[in-house]
């Protein structure tokens, strides 16, 4: 672990983040790929909530099911294999298909009624607002 000094405020996610980022590359496959669940997700946060981004090529808005249970966001869907016409054959097959379920647990209470998911060009963006009562509350500090 690298000593970060005082330049950045301490971020509890950071250390975990680094391990998780490097982890997939420790066990690389034949092609040196990262081993992740599908879909891979990126999570961005601020005091008001989080933005969960995922890559779901081939999945249209109507084919993705997004649900919330407590502090966990769940994405469900499936990608069907191409139906080849009679007599057709594959030269190359690199894309996967099948059903997937991916859950992302967030470190705060979710305002479930305000969650919003958008699918565009094979990417999904889920805005997950933090419950108002769970947000950090600034306390003014007075001199005694």
């Amino acid at each position: 672990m690298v000593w970060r000094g005082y330049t950045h405020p301490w971020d509890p996610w950071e250390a975990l983040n680094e391990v998780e980022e490097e982890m997939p590359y420790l066990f690389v496959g034949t092609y040196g790929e990262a081993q992740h669940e599908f879909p891979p997700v990126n999570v961005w946060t601020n005091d008001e909530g989080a933005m969960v981004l995922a890559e779901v090529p081939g999945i249209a808005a109507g084919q993705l099911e997004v649900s919330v249970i407590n502090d966990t966001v769940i994405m469900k869907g499936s990608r069907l294999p191409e139906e080849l016409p009679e007599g057709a054959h594959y030269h190359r097959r690199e894309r996967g298909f099948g059903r997937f379920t991916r859950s992302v647990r967030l470190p705060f209470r979710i305002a479930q009624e305000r969650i919003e998911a958008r699918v565009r060009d094979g990417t999904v963006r889920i805005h997950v607002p933090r419950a108002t009562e769970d947000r950090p509350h600034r306390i003014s500090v007075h001199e005694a």
Partner: protein
Amino acid sequence: MAQDPKAMAKSDVRGGTAGKHKDRPAVFTPRADIFETGDAIVVIADMPGVNKNSLEITLEENILTVDGRVEPELLDGFTQAHREFKVGNYHRTFTLSDAVSRDGIVAVVKDGVLRLTLPKFGPTRARKIPVQGE
């Protein structure tokens, strides 16, 4: 369950420059399926984040090049807390055989998946070459 769930996610390190140069956008090789029917060769490539405006397909001699641009993932007022995929551009080339007609190639991109239909020439008709006497 997915037959191979990780095969649905984009190929990462295999693409080449992903993650190696922090200042330069990563370039990924999109995963592709290629199949041949009686009258065409079809290429299907996963390029999440790409749409018709950010995709460029060029054909030079027998090299078909696919380039997709993806805007960097920057969210104002947010900090990244967890990362499993990198955002970058896509690049892949395909060498076409002589069986593919250069005219009539159709490219359609939908939900981040590119579908290229490369029509094959019809059955070659034997041509008779007239022989001239001296």
